[in-house]
């Protein structure tokens, strides 16, 4: 099922992800071994599952690296709205990623409504919707409606920020 098109060329993305799995396994194993456990308690103590997870991820990581070196690629998932023939384009991922980072930075300062309006516009921009006069009002209306519904009706707390809400 997972034999990719090119057999010889090493898929660098797959290899990087495989190395990431290895690193994750190392992290879990190291954390497990750092736990201090009373000897009498060792078998039923808090270490067994962490060690299991660490070792399992290391084994999976080795197998994934081996696969990547043989040129095996993972099969990208299918979804609605996906162009099956398209190569992954990292620009929209970067745009949306930056938008999310900005949102985490601003939500406490600008308040929920304004920062979420920016979030809405940024994600739409990642999907190639450049008409700001279209995304700004929709985003603002949605954020405001959600804010009011959550704070006034459901009694949850969200930061008002600079707006006098």
């Amino acid at each position, binding site marked *: 099922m997972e034999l990719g098109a090119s057999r010889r060329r090493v898929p660098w993305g797959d290899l990087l992800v495989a190395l990431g799995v290895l690193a994750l396994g190392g992290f879990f194993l190291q954390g497990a071994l750092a736990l201090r456990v009373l000897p009498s308690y060792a078998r039923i103590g808090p270490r067994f599952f962490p060690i299991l997870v660490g070792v399992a991820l290391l084994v999976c990581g080795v197998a994934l690296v081996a696969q990547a070196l043989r040129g095996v690629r993972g099969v990208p998932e299918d979804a609605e709205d996906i162009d099956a023939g398209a190569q992954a384009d990292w620009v929209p991922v970067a745009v*949306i990623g930056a938008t999310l980072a900005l949102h985490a930075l601003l939500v406490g300062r600008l308040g929920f409504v304004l920062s979420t309006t920016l979030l809405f516009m940024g994600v*739409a921009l990642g999907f190639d919707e450049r008409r700001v006069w279209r995304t700004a009002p929709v985003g603002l209306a949605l954020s405001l409606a959600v804010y009011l519904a959550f704070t006034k009706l459901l009694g949850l707390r969200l930061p008002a920020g600079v707006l006098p809400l």
Partner: protein
Amino acid sequence: MIETLEALLHGFSIALTWQNLLWAFLGVTLGTVVGILPGIGPALTVALLLPVTFKLDPIASFIMFAGIYYGGMYGGSTTSILLNTPGESASIITAIEGNQMARRGRGAAALATAAIGSFVAGTIATALLTFLAPPLARLGLAFGPADYFALMVLAFTTVTAVLGSSLLRGLTSLFFGIGLGLVGIDLQSGQARYTLGTLELLDGISVIIVAVGLFAVGETLYVASRYRRAPQDVEAIKGSIWMSREEWARSWRPWIRGALLGFPLGGLPAGGAEIPTFLSYGLEKRLSRKPEEFGKGAIEGVAGPEAANNAAAAGVLVPLLTLGIPTSATAAIMLAAFQQFGLQPGPLLFTRAPDLVWGLIASLYVGNFMLLVLNLPLVGIWVRLLTIPRPLLYAGILVFATLGVYSLGNSVVDLITLYAIGFVGFLMRRFGFPVAPAVIGMILGPLAEQQFRRALSISQGDYSVFFTRPLSLTLLIVAALALVVPVLLDVRAKRAQARREGAAQAG
């Protein structure tokens, strides 16, 4: 039998109060909407609603969640009939025949047989659930910790083996999820694990953050990376939604066969709705008097798989309610919802919270009926959801994702965790790692560890406890087979292929 009927009647007396009818209606409507919309599904919706329902009555919440779960199944079929892009894997089959029917001007009949079939199968399966759940729960009472642990291992391996195309990638995803579940204070020893020295992680990573990150943020990033810019054609609904006599005659047997196929397969710990839909399609194709129509819009090819799909959804609830074992991502999130209310699904749930269990089961009948009404005459309204511009849709999904997580505790750390996990979800999709095993691993992992340690403390640290109890041993053997058999079959298929290629070259 009589007791069950009495309990069910009692359940109806709870489900039919006007408040609960309202919650059920809200649930099935939301479920239909998220089932139709791409990029958002029942698992994500329930996860997003968890913080909101925290203050709600648990019975009302679960009636709504069940409505979302069933509604998502109905809505999914509408999308796959009218758009030629299979979304969730359980609808791939419907997309083949249903979309062909829609293109040949029989879209209304396809929608009708899908909706009525879903209703018939959903009702049959809910009835089976009603009568099978109590004896199964009683059986579950005999399970010891070792048996439970073995059962969870079985659920892990089958879910991993069934979902996704690569066992290795599924296992990686599963162990990543179990690892996420380990973060926080270990309740038995009081030790902090993987908290990186921060206070925020002492309570562990919230299931909501992981689910919303993997589903909403991960999916949005992934779709953006390979976004289909050309607008999609939504097939217009042509024909009458009242099926002709011939269409009824060709539909009712596939409905019933689909229900009988889907329910048990959904209920096995190897759950999920994909396999029953494929099996039902194959069966209908073999039994049909007009097999040549298959691939060109055969109504049996919509009726059977859609019925199987819905029956499997009810089947998934059997191990969830009676044993506390989730076999799909949505079921795992529902398990997390039970935990939020301090409830543990399993054999004791039937005696400790009979109002909840029977109110929930009764509401499944009610919800199914509502969905039939909601989806048949009103389908034209739902279809308009498909024309929402995608940039605005995905932007909206991320607004709700952020809102759901931020409202947990107004914490920026939560948001950053959400976005980081979302990026992991993107990578998983991009490089072919199935997401569901990670969610199931995260939610079921801590329970498995608990049972594991309980079993070992009873046996005083002797690992043989897992292999000396017949039940636990059997379950572990089946779990091992679930991992090994697909690999062996794969190797055999590859050898056969190599031999054929060799023969072709020689000849």
